[in-house]
């Protein structure tokens, strides 16, 4: 087998000039070498693959009163493995797709064995349009639209016997979201300031994890609360390395549930889960290493600072737990 692989390698290597279709196109836009000079869209003709992972370790939550609550004997490990594909469609806009999987481990004193699961998460896809750009120094302002599709596993599996007997971990709300936002980046020499604001409209839908209790075989309609997100960060470029730090403030409306009604708004008469609204303030830190124009390494950390929540379900997309998140991504560009 080894010999075959080597031979195959030789064959490919002997024909590099003929693989012309993969040569860089003349029409591809120039891309700045350094993060501080890069706009908020990728640029026409560029295709980017980002392979990344987030690891969140939570041992507590925010209380409704805004106090940190530590769980006594529970640890929640929630990882996200993601592939992000970005494509610069024209000089002004880009499309992107995020494909996610999650590995989850719930260690709890009430169970003999930790509950672990691995499955698809919800993909996102979105569009960014650059409404303004100036160069040297860079100013880039984009508006964006993002859609989260409820693809991930939403079936709890065997649930008879209560929440500790679930055989699967739910990784999707089972409902879609649409985010509309605006982001701006302004360069000041080796420093860049980025600010963003977004509104997340979360639609209602029938969810497999929401089960009515009369017959125990039908599902309920749920609506996670709409969210508003503002964030800001400052980036400093030091040679090929860019360091950034900032904060993210997120506020969330209350969760709703119930049955569908006739008409164009089937979620119009859902009941509000009192106290389930909340907010969080996290600090974020990052390091970007611009290895080449085609390869970046991005490391990040997210540390919760303050928050207010009502934790009733370990579903990160509805009621996030309290814990640090560490991330690493390698971005390849062609």
């Amino acid at each position, binding site marked *: 087998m080894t010999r075959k692989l080597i031979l195959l390698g030789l064959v490919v290597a002997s*024909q590099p000039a003929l*693989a012309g*279709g993969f040569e860089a196109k*003349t029409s591809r836009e120039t891309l700045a070498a350094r993060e501080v000079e890069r706009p908020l869209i990728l640029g026409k003709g560029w295709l980017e693959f980002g392979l990344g992972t987030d690891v969140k370790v939570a041992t507590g939550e925010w209380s409704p009163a805004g106090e940190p609550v530590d769980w006594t004997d529970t640890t929640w490990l929630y990882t996200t493995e993601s592939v992000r594909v970005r494509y610069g469609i024209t*000089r002004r806009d880009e499309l992107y797709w995020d494909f996610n999987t999650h590995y989850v481990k719930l260690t709890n004193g009430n169970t003999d064995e930790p509950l672990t699961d691995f499955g698809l998460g919800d993909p996102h896809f979105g569009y960014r349009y650059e409404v303004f750009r100036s160069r040297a120094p860079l100013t880039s302002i984009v508006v964006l639209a993002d*859609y989260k599709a409820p693809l991930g596993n939403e079936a709890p599996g065997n649930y008879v016997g209560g929440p500790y007997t679930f055989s699967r971990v739910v990784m999707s709300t089972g409902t879609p979201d649409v985010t509309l936002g605006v982001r701006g980046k302004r360069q000041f020499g080796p420093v860049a300031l980025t600010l963003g604001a977004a509104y997340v409209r979360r639609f209602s839908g029938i969810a497999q994890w929401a089960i009515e209790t009369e017959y125990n075989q039908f599902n309920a309609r749920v609506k996670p609360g709409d969210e508003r997100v503002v964030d800001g960060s400052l980036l400093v470029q030091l040679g090929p390395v860019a360091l950034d730090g900032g904060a993210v403030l997120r506020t969330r409306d209350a969760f709703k549930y119930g049955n569908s009604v006739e008409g164009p708004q*089937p979620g119009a008469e859902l009941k509000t889960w009192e106290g389930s609204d909340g907010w969080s303030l996290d600090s974020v830190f990052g390091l970007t290493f611009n290895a080449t124009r085609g390869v970046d390494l991005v490391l990040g950390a997210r540390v919760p600072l303050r928050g207010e929540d009502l934790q009733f379900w370990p579903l990160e997309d509805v009621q996030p737990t309290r814990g640090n998140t560490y991330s690493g991504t390698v971005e390849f560009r062609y």
Partner: protein
Amino acid sequence: MVRTKNTLFAAGAVLGVSMLARPAEAKFVFAYNHPDLQWYSIETEHFVIHYPVSKKTKDEGNEHYLTTEYSARKAAEVAEQMWEPMCSQFNYYLKERIHIVMLNQSDDLEGFTIPSWDWIEVSANPGGTFYRSRGRMEWFSDVLVHEFAHVVSLKANAAHAEGAMGVEIGGLYQDGIHDVDTGAQFFIMDGDSVFWTEGGAEYWSDNAGYNWWTASRDQNIRMTTLQDRLLGYNEWHSRAGKSRFWNDHERYYQQGYSFGQYLRQRFGDQAYAQFALEYAKRWRPQWETVIEDVVGVDAETLYWDWRNYITERYQRQYEKVKDRGEVVGHEVLGKRADWEFSDPAARDDWLKQPRWKREKAQEKTGTYQWEPRISPDGRYWGVLNRADIKIHRMDEDQMFEWTGHAPQDPKRADESRRLSTHFPADFEHGWDFIPGRDAIVLTGREDMMHRGEAVTGIRFEKDGYNWKQLWVFEMPTREKKEGNRTFETRERKRVLKGLNNHEVYPKGSYHAIPNTQRGSDPSVSPDGERVAYLEYTDGTMNLVTIKLDGTDKKYLTHFKSGEWLQTPDWSPDGKKIVFAIFKNHQQNLYTINADGTDLRAITWDHWEELDAHWDEDGGIYFSAEPDGIFNIYRYDTGTGEVRQITNVIGGAFTPQISPEGNLLYTYYTAFGWKVYALPKEEFLNLPADALFNTKDIPADEVARTIAYEEDLSHWAESTKKYSSTSLMAPTGVPMIRLENDSRSNVSLSAGFYIFLQDYVEKHGLYLMSLLGEDTLLMGQYFYQGWYPTLLATAYHYEVKYDAGYILDQDEDPNTTDDQQIFEIKNQQYYNIANLGGYYPWNADFSTGVYVSGMEAGFKGTSDDRWKRYLEEVEAGVWGEFSNNSWFYGSANPWFGRTVNLTLSHAWSDIVYADYGGVAVDDGQELDAYQYNKAEMRWTEDIPMPTLGGIPVLQTAQQKHHTIQVDLRLGAIDRNVDVWDEFRAGGQHPYYWGSGALRPNTQFAGYPAYSLSGETIGILGLAYRFPVANWINWKVGPLYTTGITAQFGGTAGNLWSFRPPSDPSQYYRSRYGERIAYDPGAVRREIPFVDKAYKNGNYLLYDAQAELRVSSVLFNGSGWDSFLRVAYGFNEIRGYGDVNGDDLYDTSENAYNDELSNETEKPGFRVYIGLGTGW
């Protein structure tokens, strides 16, 4: 657990496995695979040229030996020479290398590029009509440079990144309550105007020095202008604008080219190219707005100014012709044409007709009538008309166009009609009478008279080659009796062969001349023994003679360097041959001795002399354009004197002189190439020596020119065997789709499809990914290196869907207070893997085999994992005959036949654990079973019959009124689970793609997939007609060209197996389904005799009406829309949510069977498609 028996039948489920056995992308240029060819690649600085050479030589018995080495090397040379001049016009110097695939497998012209794939395909053989349209042959410049101009201009113009051809956005909302399905689809792409794309490619080629404005191009635009056929402002942006009339496709090129020259005069050389750079700055819905941004004048103002300018110019030219005395004769019609009116009333009658009618009438007399010939004995004349040689008796004194009066002798006229005949031929390139015999030699195709069609109507092609070849056809007569009279006639007997009424050519009356493959332009020697013709090989032609039996082949010339020859003709004494040679950018007439010696030029100038005819009177008649217009001239072989015979404003070609000295020739008009006759008394007959150099011919220069061979051997060093790692740039299309599976469950999914293949199309990969709540993943690999194309396809589809249930406490549907609605969300998936192969026997007929594995299953709230419901393996064969599939996407396919037949055998196993691994269907418990399935779909589009010539029907036929008959028959040989049964019901084209529903009329009055059974028999009838077919509306980026209406209806049903109705013969499952104690008690319903128990009807009927609007967006993105209203006359039952209200009625079954309580009442269904096609 509520049992929801297969209530969801998503689009993926009905994607027939035989469809998966066909490639998602067919070959772009090759119709056939050619495993007999070895490909090579020449690498240059900016290009890679791939070319084929036969693996087996001629000496090894390969009768289709070919090499493309010279053509590829020449292409490499030209490509490198043109690279800089082309790129510099746009200041756009390509970093990527462009791959040029030289084709030589066929004798047809190809020139094709997909710029974003860095890919050009060009045929080494320019094939048929090219030189008639564009003039003297420099095919590498005219085609290769043209295509490269596209590459540079469209890359420079691309507002979208090259990796994405556009973005597809669409959605379909199916309102099951109101029975309205509404779909919309947009393909957002770059939308350059066609006049600029094609005309620009000509113009930039000219600027680059490899192309020029020939007299043939000028002829096209001159006559188009003078005869009022210029494409209008709205029409010239899009190919949909006006490409249904003769030569409109060529007008896009020449009008755009002419417009470029006009802009050059007003705004300088660079203006045309600047449009590209301006557009690339930002995408805009109307490309033409860049014109004003670049030159400061809006596009429409410029169009009209250009139009006025060329009109004035050509009118002045026409005045000059008339001042000298126009000598043109008349079209051979046997009468004066309506447009040759001679009084005001006739003129008014003519002009009051709408423009399209006048254009149609003028085209109707023939559009491609070329190469008239007169037999040496003067008894026949004939013409090649669209691949059909028509032979007529010729009595010169009866010829209206020569005599000026109608035929006087009705007996001879009748005899002439009976003795006229016709023969199949290639589209052009010559034919000739055989002196002393009632026979002709013509340029045909190898497979032209294939025997395979005798049984099936289907011609089989075994190797993909169908080269030109010379044929001999006799013109035998037979006796035919009509009443008491017996006639001599050449009318052939007709028999029904296969599906068509065919003429029978008498045995032994025709044969291909052996050893004449790739031969054309035959001319028979005066003694009738030999034929002189032109033989093509590797971008070059040579003059050859051969005996009529294919022996004693002699090459009179030995060219190897791209020389192009034209129309040989023998001298009356049979000692010499006259012909034209195009070499070193110059085309002149030459003579050569019949033994190949003494090649000498008889003209030596820069005009394009062609179509030489050596007449008995010692003159060589030919066509040339020394004053910019092709006219007929006579060269006196004795004195070298030249006299002008015609003086036309169009163009005069292919002269033939009758025994009486009259002229028959081809005349170019804006309505086609016509046969014209000119009596000798009207010949212009003016000296034209000053225009031609016939007497002072520099023999040394001629000899040097003829002997010159360009040294291209240096390209050998950079040639290597082709490698399939030579992959094209992958291209994808991002997609966003919005769909619903219930009233409130609307899901958005997004993804893309990607296409990747190597440059000579041996290996291809098609990937599709749509992720969202509903997810579709598909991958298809196809291998085209062997005769059948091999395909491997994998397909994953999963969907989440909501369903509502009414729980009725008292099980009485009439009391509603105790009813509660609950909802449930489930998931369903399909995995399909398919291996298949298919082979196109010819352009109309393909067959294939496949083996396919499928599994499908569910996942509910309490399921840890997916649960498989069904496992199935299916193997089958299919065949498809379609002679009109090419225009099935059009609003009105007005003729043709499409027949699909699929035969399969399947092994199915129900494995759903929740049901104990069995399913109940039609009173029978099913576990693992096998079945055979046969299905046929036959669609016939019939031009409106005239019923013996009823005027109103004749008008309807002329306007393309069409009757469509659609028959679908199928049977499964046992009771199967409903998943395996046939399905029927109305369809929206959004799921399938424009034109994919062939046709779209079947049971549109019933919900999609609502009908099922093991036997299917449905007959659809429709009547379709254009309401307005040339409406030319342009509103912003939307251009609408036509509206078509269709009325029709469907009758038929699906029949199944019926459980026993006697309670003693069955028991009920825990879900209430009947199960027969004895499976033999389950009876198959007899089609058309039994009432189908699943839908409660003997036959179902519907009626429907549809309006289709043909449009394009952004000049090139098809945006065909429709509104269809259908009425289903029958109330139907079935499984699950029959009435489409998203609620499953689970109360006690009122019918005491396992079907739903719900019924779909008779009523209207509405389908709306905006940009979805039909």
